[in-house]
């Protein structure tokens, strides 16, 4: 990214952190957390401890980071190197990202930026201009991406509340600022479990590794009475609702499953996992030392804010997370597809000079689809 663009982004971000500091959610037990940040065109600075919100505000104003992170873990010495921090516990966190949902809309709004010749084209495997395979993908997510991600959030919270007895008030949902949601879960029995245990939780939530026996299908002499009932709780219930479809079809479907045999049942399980499992990013939940984007901070992939979703249903990601100014700026835009921000349509732009509001300019520059003219 060139100097002028960086200066422009930094001044927009600084203004945000000055005026909208109230949107930042300083996590509880601030002094036990590790903070980290990145500046534009530079690496990560981490292992920082922050006493309180005032100190955090100062850090943001002094450094004007492109991205700010805070640990889900609590440490005795958050500023020391990793193995001296003295890990105490970590909040349970989840990342749901539209790019992991295999959505058909993705190809329509994913662009390829060639690392060799900087050409921008619609989603492709090779650069049309120079044939290079070193392509960076940029997605301008659409409403379908967000709606589908919301469905995954709801699936996740259903499992958390029903199977794990987690209080709804302890589940906090944030829009990630780009194309997904971050979910924090507090005050659970899982605060102190390690990475391997969390990976088992991940498999549970994603419906990975299920075996036929769990659903009543045995290798030898399977018995139809051990198949799940329609109204059962947990995965047996979710499985039967999906596979039987309705109570009345239970008997017929069980007969089919039985006649198809054990290995076919295993295949059914693997196939339904795609539909009934919740698509979370396993690496995030497994990581007990992660520094995760700070709630209320700006995501430099888009210039949008990682914002708390009070009412997920009504939440409109590309309206409710945009807090940068409307002042117009002139940019050189190269964006072959249309996108929507704050209920207004922008683009497509074919290498042209245009005047757009700051929040749009920031969005496009962050996506590497424009530069300051």
């Amino acid at each position: 990214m060139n100097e002028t663009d960086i200066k422009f982004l930094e001044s927009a971000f600084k203004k945000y952190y000055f005026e909208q500091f109230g949107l930042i959610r300083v996590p509880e037990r601030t002094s036990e957390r590790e903070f980290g940040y990145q500046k534009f065109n530079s690496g990560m600075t981490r292992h920082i401890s922050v006493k309180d919100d005032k100190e955090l505000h100062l850090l943001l104003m002094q450094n004007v980071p492109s991205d700010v992170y805070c640990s889900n873990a609590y440490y005795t010495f958050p500023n020391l190197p990793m193995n001296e921090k003295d890990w105490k516990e970590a909040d349970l966190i989840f990342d749901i990202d539209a790019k992991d949902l295999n959505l058909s809309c993705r190809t329509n709004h994913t662009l390829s930026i060639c690392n060799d010749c900087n050409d921008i084209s619609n989603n492709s495997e090779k650069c049309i201009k120079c044939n290079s395979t070193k392509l960076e993908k940029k997605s301008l997510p659409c409403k379908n991406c967000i709606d589908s991600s919301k469905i995954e959030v709801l699936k996740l919270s259903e499992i958390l509340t029903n199977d794990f007895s987690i209080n709804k008030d302890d589940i906090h949902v944030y829009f990630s600022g780009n194309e997904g949601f971050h979910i924090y879960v507090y005050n659970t029995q899982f605060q102190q479990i390690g990475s391997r245990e969390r990976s088992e939780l991940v498999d549970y939530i994603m419906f990975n590794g299920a075996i036929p026996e769990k659903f009543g299908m045995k290798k030898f002499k399977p018995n139809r009475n051990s198949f799940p009932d329609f109204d059962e709780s947990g995965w047996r219930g979710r499985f039967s609702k999906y596979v039987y479809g309705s109570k009345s079809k239970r008997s017929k479907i069980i007969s089919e499953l039985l006649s198809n045999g054990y290995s076919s049942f295993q295949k059914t399980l693997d196939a339904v996992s795609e539909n009934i499992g919740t698509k979370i990013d396993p690496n995030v939940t497994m990581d007990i030392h992660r520094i995760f984007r700070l709630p209320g901070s700006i995501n430099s992939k888009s210039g949008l804010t990682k914002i708390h979703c009070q009412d997920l249903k009504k939440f409109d990601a590309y309206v409710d997370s945009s807090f940068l100014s409307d002042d117009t700026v002139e940019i050189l835009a190269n964006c072959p597809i249309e996108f929507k921000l704050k209920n207004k349509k922008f683009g497509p732009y074919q290498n042209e000079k245009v005047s757009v509001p700051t929040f749009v300019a920031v969005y496009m520059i962050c996506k590497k689809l424009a530069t300051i003219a």
Partner: protein
Amino acid sequence: MLSLGQDEIAKYPFLADAGQYLKDKGFTLEQFGTDPDLKELITKAYERIQVAADGKIYKSDLVGDQVSREAALPREVFSFLLAIVLLKLSGMHTLIKRFALAEARRAEKYLEKDLANISDESKKQLAIRIIDDLFSVQIEKLDDYFVIPVSDYLKHSINFHEREWKLINRHVEKGQVFLTPHETVRLIRKELGTYINSKIVNAKTPTMIPGFEDSVNKLVMLSKKFSTFTMTTGEYPPCIKHAIDVLEKGENLPHSGRFMLATFLLSKGQSVQQIAPLFKNAPDYNERVTLYQLNHLAGTSGSGTQYSCPSCEKLKTQSLCFATSECEGIITPLQFGKKRK
């Protein structure tokens, strides 16, 4: 410490304070080496170890839950305590491990019976208390099942590699896992083994006691049976091949895949300089960053921690596993192609 009755000590002899027990019964170790009547207990102790070494469970003189004869009780406990003395004198760690595991499985049987005992509430309570005291696992009875918090379940179940122990294959409700008495006890097998093992390891090694020499020598011979040799084919496992393939094609390998590949090759003895060129085709290749990260993983920079290759289980979760039939029985990619001879 739990207060135990006679038959309970016979079932769970590792709960007894060995020195105190001998004292209470009015014996010294030396007597077992010299007194002809007591000496047969050393043979019994040796047999107890031999059975364990063969991977079997020692059949005690306890009949069912009851003791066959009143006199059998102390003999049960003595043979256990003497076995420990023999093991300590022989210093053979492979035998200690095998013995601890076999004794754990023996105790498991009794714990299971005690848990399932509907008629005797006190026995059930004792089993629940042993599990709580020793392993801090709080179990509760709920209808025909025992329930334990999911988080406690996970701490133990992650040591198992069989798929039926995965949380997804368990009955989970309201934050708790439902287990049969058998599963409850099976869950703590490793910890029970570790507990018994640590009791033996931490016991003081006595100086050689006259009359114990023969059995100790026999144990040293016995342990020789268990040294193994391994052969490696040198071929890379499918997950590693796949990762290399992806990179060669210039496609994007996720961070977790790069982590796996690098830690695998580092463990196989390759140097950072040898590994770095593999990443050249990555869409976001940056030589400086690659070297920094590889050095970090190798422990030559940063905190000095050497990162190890993830387990197969973890790779499955990360969708990086492409197992073939040749992967059967391994739990980390590093074991691929190793054959015991």
